[in-house]
């Protein structure tokens, strides 16, 4: 069942088009990774989903309700963590957490204490004295101590140390295991890779790829390192083979996913001594799309399944 669905979402600020037809679908129990470079439109999309900005065109629905019209009802069931948390300097962290939890409606005292302990936060300090990481913790604790059905997280770990990032990841996985949905915008690709079932990549206000990690991997190249009995020749002339380099006695190169079968058949004729295959990381994917601002993206990428 779809928890969140946007259809052809467009947002213009004057003459500038920030979002140009964004389609996102998040299903129940799914963790959706939302990635893209700075200024691509991630935060604008999220602010539209929260009903803080009004869409110029298109539709966005959460739990089947309109994000603008039914904002308050939707917000009773979601939890949001912004990337840049500004808090009231003269309230303490504890006060802010209580306020946030109360404003959502639900209340989970034991969970609050547990999370404060887990994230190692001193709730008696005024927010003005908190570092960026500590302000982030306040927002995270308020979010995860509420029983939301959808978590909207906009770069929630910027400013957290690796230890706290681990705690955060546990919280997300725990939410997922109880059937909650998460939309996670992040720059930390390893984090997205570990947590997300589905990934959407946005650039210049357009979704350029969506799919599960496996699906996306098919769209890019696998790295191979091969050592053969007989010298491997004419590899450069094979279709779909790129960047051949000689390393000691092995050859390393990348192969387009669709040519992998042919290439392996060809290589095996030379007698394989060792073969290391590395699947493309999200970073490879990401880089390939972003570097390609000038180049044309490969045909059929968007939404190819």
């Amino acid at each position, binding site marked *: 069942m779809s928890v969140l669905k946007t259809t052809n979402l467009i947002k213009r600020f004057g003459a500038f088009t920030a979002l140009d037809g964004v389609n996102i679908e998040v299903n129940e129990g799914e963790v959706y990774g939302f990635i893209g470079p700075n200024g691509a439109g991630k935060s604008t999309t999220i*602010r539209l989903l*929260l*009903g*803080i*900005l*009004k869409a110029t065109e298109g539709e966005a629905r959460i739990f089947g309700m309109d994000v603008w019209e039914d*904002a*308050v*009802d939707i*917000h*009773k069931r*979601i939890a*949001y963590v*912004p990337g*840049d948390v*500004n*808090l*009231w*300097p*003269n*309230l*303490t962290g*504890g*006060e*802010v*957490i*209580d*306020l*946030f939890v*109360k*404003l*959502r*409606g639900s209340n989970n005292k034991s969970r609050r204490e547990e999370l404060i302990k887990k994230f190692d936060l*001193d*709730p*008696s*300090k*005024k927010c*003005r*004295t908190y570092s960026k990481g500590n302000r982030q913790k306040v927002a995270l604790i308020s979010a995860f101590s509420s029983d939301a059905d959808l978590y*909207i997280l906009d770069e929630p770990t910027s400013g957290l140390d690796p230890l706290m990032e681990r705690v955060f990841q546990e919280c997300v996985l725990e939410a997922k295991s109880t059937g909650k949905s998460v939309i996670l915008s992040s720059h930390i690709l390893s984090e997205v890779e570990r947590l997300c079932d589905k990934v959407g990549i946005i650039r210049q206000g357009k979704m350029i790829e969506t799919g599960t990690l496996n699906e996306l991997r098919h769209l890019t190249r696998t790295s191979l390192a091969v050592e053969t009995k007989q010298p491997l020749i004419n590899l450069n002339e094979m279709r779909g083979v790129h960047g051949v380099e000689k390393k000691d006695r092995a050859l390393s190169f990348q192969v387009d996913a669709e040519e992998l079968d042919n290439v392996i058949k060809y290589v095996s004729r030379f007698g394989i001594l060792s073969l290391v295959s590395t699947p493309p990381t999200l970073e490879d994917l990401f880089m390939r799309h972003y570097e390609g601002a000038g180049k044309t993206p490969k045909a059929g990428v968007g939404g190819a399944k």
Partner: protein
Amino acid sequence: MSKQLYKNTRILSGLIVRRDRVRIPVWLISLSTLTIIVAASFTDLYKNEGERQAIAETMRNPAMTAMVGQGYGLENYTNGAMMAHQMLLFTAMAVAIMSILLVVRHTRADEEDGRIEIIRALPAGRLANLNSTILVLFGVNVLLALIVGFGLNALGIESMDLEGSLLYGAAIGATGMIFTAITALFAQLSESSRGTIGFSITILLIAYLLRAVGDVSNEALSWLSPLGWILGSEVYVNNYWWPIFLTVGVASILVVLSLYLNAIRDLEAGFLRAKSGRKKASPFLLSPLGLALRLQRTGLIAWAVGTFILGGSYGSVLGDLESFFADNDMMKNLLPPVEGFSLTEQFLTMLMSVISMICTIPPLMAMLKLKGEESKNRTEHLLSRAVSRIRLMGSYFVISIVSGFAMLSLAAIGLGAVGNSVMEEGIAFGRLYSAAMVYLPAMWIMIGLAALLIGVAPKLSGIVWAYLTYSFFVVYLGGLLQLPEWMSTLSPYNHIPKVPVEEIDYMKLFILTIVAIVIIAVGFIQYKNRDIQG
């Protein structure tokens, strides 16, 4: 002590001047023009010695002494003596506030925002920033002293000779210097810019109160206050210079102390530790209304006390009014006589319009806080939770309306209580209170305008302050400056019936209220339908 504590002070001073290249001239120009204009206007207002002596008589009561200080030379109340008596203290306090704000801006506020950290990471001395701030501020105050001094003398008023005028300027400048030093000291002690401003302003108020109490009862008490020293120079009467040297001397000692404290403390630390707060929120905080109230609590309490004192101090002059008006041309222009009403009652209507406009400031601040929170990206915390925009804006609106009512009531109560104790024939409190309350519809229009701007054009919401200033100008000074009629009709305050001199015109009040309701409604609807910025 490490070497090169002051390295690059010169460059940092340049940076401060560059950052404040508008701010500092604005302060200097407005303070000096105000002083010079008032001095020049005194000669027009009181044409001869007789009129000046009449004013001197009304100044002889304890309430006036508490407000503006002891009157030196009341026996021979020249223009100079009048200037020093009525203007010096308040101008000096304005200069103190300028110094406090500028010093905090360049010391603790910069430190809090992490900008000093960047400076300190560059090859700049540990004390260079504080030192350059103090140097620039001392420079600004010396400049102000010279501009005011020579400016007053240039007016060519007989009783304002060069020495007296320079002393007047020096008294103002010295006040600025000692508060520069006091603020520099608190910038080391407190951990936050708010705290620094709070402590420094508190010292200023204590100085004022000590002097007020001392001047009325025991003069020794006044000598504990820097403002008492300044007034002790008896400008234009006896021209004592030593209090200026005393003030500057104490300022220098405080500067050395603050530099020492700066040298031995850690960056971003203070000597007064912030105490730890609540671990859990009190139930009162847990709603948009509770939060909005909590954020503005201190400010609202301060304003409540302030408006009460304001009412009281206006009330204190009511006793001497009749004699004062009888021989003052300015007041006759301000208030053309009306049959059947005493001058005091007429003056009351004028007072009420001024009081109501001052009492409009806190409700406007309360309303505009909503926009301030939005610019700081904090309204999204609430709107991303189960809080509707109407409820959010409504919270600020309720505080605004209630605070406006409370401020106006407190001022009226203060005015009535003190006024009736000094007048021979008092004014019934009910009449006085209703004279204040008729201004509520005008106040609602101002609040409505703020709400409208927040809904339609949040970036332009400052316009409401300009409108309030305009209203103040045309309603208060319209008669005096002979402004055309249409200018004052543009202000809502002008349409309020002048109770008790005029009857209460309910139709007018009703129309004003309807106008207020309409613009408030438009403001709410627009706020509901626009993008949240920030």
